[in-house]
């Protein structure tokens, strides 16, 4: 039977919406997968239309990571949930110093969600994956009733390989190490926040969403003995540093004046009473390495387009309390604590 017989009418992408039948396992679902997902992600593994992807892996250590993506609004300045879901998982894999190879993508769609929006999201994912040189090799879709989802949720899982001799883990941070940051903080979170309908700010802030594996590759080549890498996503720089301090059983001392921050992010943060240290990034990384290698690593980062504004922002110290402390631009000291609850705009 030809495809034309199976789906005599093409999906009405311009006007159509997700319906419960799109998740029912029948013809409507098959058509959605074929006309939307397979067309966009097209590759040899998907073409087999098996339930799983089969591939050979070079003899080496494997890295695997998964990440679920929920974001409101789905489209924001500088990106959308589609490219974000690809970058997010690639970055998680890359933070082990790995080269990401394959992704799996799983969609939870809400009944009534416009097909045109879904197409935009899927194409954005396909483009992000292609740019990163990573194939989306298997996937799944489910549909939930209207009101039980927020348009679309995407979970991606990634697999990558690590070169011999590279051991990157938060637990390796040690007193004396230097802390480096690849660029200005707070841009993703502020770009998304500025678009929430109840805030709607007119700002030039764009999400920094980007795949960091090539930057990581350049860094690992320059300094194979990087101790630790982390992308400071949800909870921002402060949370990532506290997590590392806890895992490695160390403290950190930061210089506020060294932390790159762009004026619009600072200004919006000031206005809303939000501290950019706690705002999400989607295209930045933290690196911890022996102090003697810090300048070399910094130079390698600055040589890459995604690390041009990289800076050494502080050092790891011995501290039984595992405190992250910061010398403020003002000359005082403060603790950079874990976030408690959600950061909320001030009301006073």
């Amino acid at each position, binding site marked *: 039977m030809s495809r034309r017989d199976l789906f005599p009418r093409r999906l009405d992408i311009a006007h159509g919406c997700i319906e419960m039948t799109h998740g029912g396992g029948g013809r409507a679902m098959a058509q959605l997968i074929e006309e939307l997902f397979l067309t966009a992600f097209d590759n040899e593994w998907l073409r087999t239309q098996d339930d799983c992807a089969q591939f050979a892996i070079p003899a080496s250590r494997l890295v695997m990571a998964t990440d679920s993506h929920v974001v409101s609004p789905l489209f924001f300045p500088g990106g959308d949930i589609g490219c974000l879901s690809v970058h997010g998982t690639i970055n998680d894999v890359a933070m082990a110093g790995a080269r990401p190879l394959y992704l799996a993508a799983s969609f939870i769609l809400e009944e009534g969600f416009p097909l045109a929006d879904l197409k935009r999201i899927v194409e954005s994912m396909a483009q992000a994956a292609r740019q990163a040189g990573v194939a989306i090799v298997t996937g799944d879709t489910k549909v939930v009733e209207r009101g039980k989802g927020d348009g679309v949720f995407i979970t991606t899982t990634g697999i990558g390989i690590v070169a011999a001799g590279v051991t990157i883990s938060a637990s390796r941070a040690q007193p004396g190490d230097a802390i480096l940051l690849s660029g200005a903080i707070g841009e993703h979170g502020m770009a998304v926040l500025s678009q929430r309908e109840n805030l709607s700010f007119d700002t030039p802030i764009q999400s920094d969403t980007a795949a960091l594996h090539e930057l990581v590759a350049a860094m690992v080549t320059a300094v194979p003995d990087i101790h630790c890498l982390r992308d400071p996503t949800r909870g921002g720089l402060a949370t990532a540093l506290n997590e590392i301090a806890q895992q490695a059983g160390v403290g950190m001392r930061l210089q506020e004046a060294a932390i790159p921050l762009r004026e619009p992010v600072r200004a919006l943060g000031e206005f809303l009473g939000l501290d950019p240290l706690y705002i999400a990034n989607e295209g930045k990384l933290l690196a911890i390495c022996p102090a003697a290698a810090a300048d070399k690593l910094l130079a390698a980062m600055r040589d890459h387009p995604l690390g041009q504004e990289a800076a050494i922002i502080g050092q790891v110290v011995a501290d039984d309390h595992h*405190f992250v402390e910061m010398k403020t631009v003002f*000359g*005082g000291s403060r603790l950079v604590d874990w976030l408690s609850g959600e950061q909320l705009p001030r*009301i006073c």
Partner: protein
Amino acid sequence: MKYLDEFRDGQLAQGLAAHIRQAVAPNRHYALMEFCGGHTHAICRYGIEDLLPDTIRLIHGPGCPVCVLPSGRLQAAIELVERERLILCSYGDLLRVPGAHGDTLLKAKARGADIRMVYSISDALEIARAHPERSVVFFAIGFETTTPPTAVVIRQAQQEGLRNFSVYCNHVLTPPALRALLAAGGEVDGFIGPAHVSTIIGSQPYEFVARDHQRPLVIAGFEPLDMLRAIAMLIRQINAGEAIVENEYTRAVSAAGNRKAQGLMEEMFRVRPTFEWRGLGWLPDSALAIRPEFAEWDAEQRFEMPPIQAADHKACACGEVLRGVKHPQDCTVFGTACTPEHPLGSCMVSAEGACAAYYHYGRFRQAAAS
């Protein structure tokens, strides 16, 4: 961070700090109270205490709207949303404030109450428009800064004929709280006056502090340099034996304040004869209620909310902290039983609360000292 703006300039700050160190008299101590939680937050956030000589002690005042809301008023909101099965819209911070027996709005939400976190009263109005079949109540708190927007939105609801929207009004007034602090005595030598509140009410309502209590008061912005300047101005007055109201925050505050905002408040609210404050007790003429003409938009009148008295946790020292007689770290449960994740008192909840500010920014000092 890589910016140098006028109000955060580290070098200017060092210069001002040096000036203050020279200005303080060698044999005396200065106890200065910042009224506003916004100032408390800035002090801890920028480590301002590190720049001051030991002889200056900053005492943290009660100007944190979440902190001064008494347990009873909070409990009344929990009971309202559960009894009437309505939508209660609240600022996120309020969700964690303990009501009676440690109950919170967050726990009520988990039990099934429809409680929505909003960023402003306009969001609540929007929810009311979107759900004409449901009753929507906004949990209004705050000093004079957040009061005019409440008035504007009630007006709007009236004009639109939006009858499913009302406001649980807990707005309080700054001058009566200052009056209560001064009446209770205490050792405060001078006050750093509110920033945003003063843009609304002006500097004139603080005159009694200087006139009747012979204490200087300097209105200051929330930026760290504003605060250092205000501290320098207070030290000068104290050294000279003066007591006047000065305004450091001239870029935003005038003597008369914002007349239009005051007009809006006057039209919408009446002053309550008395109102309970956490830590300060019942203070005369210290809070606002919605006028009877707007009863339909007043949740208290509309749902006949009964007044509730609820005791605070017995270990909680929030009262003393809010009056400035105890430092957050003097509370026996600070950082142990009481943390931002599990607050026993309200001062540990909001970022403007003194306990939360010390916990988030200053814990390392305590650790270093012990």
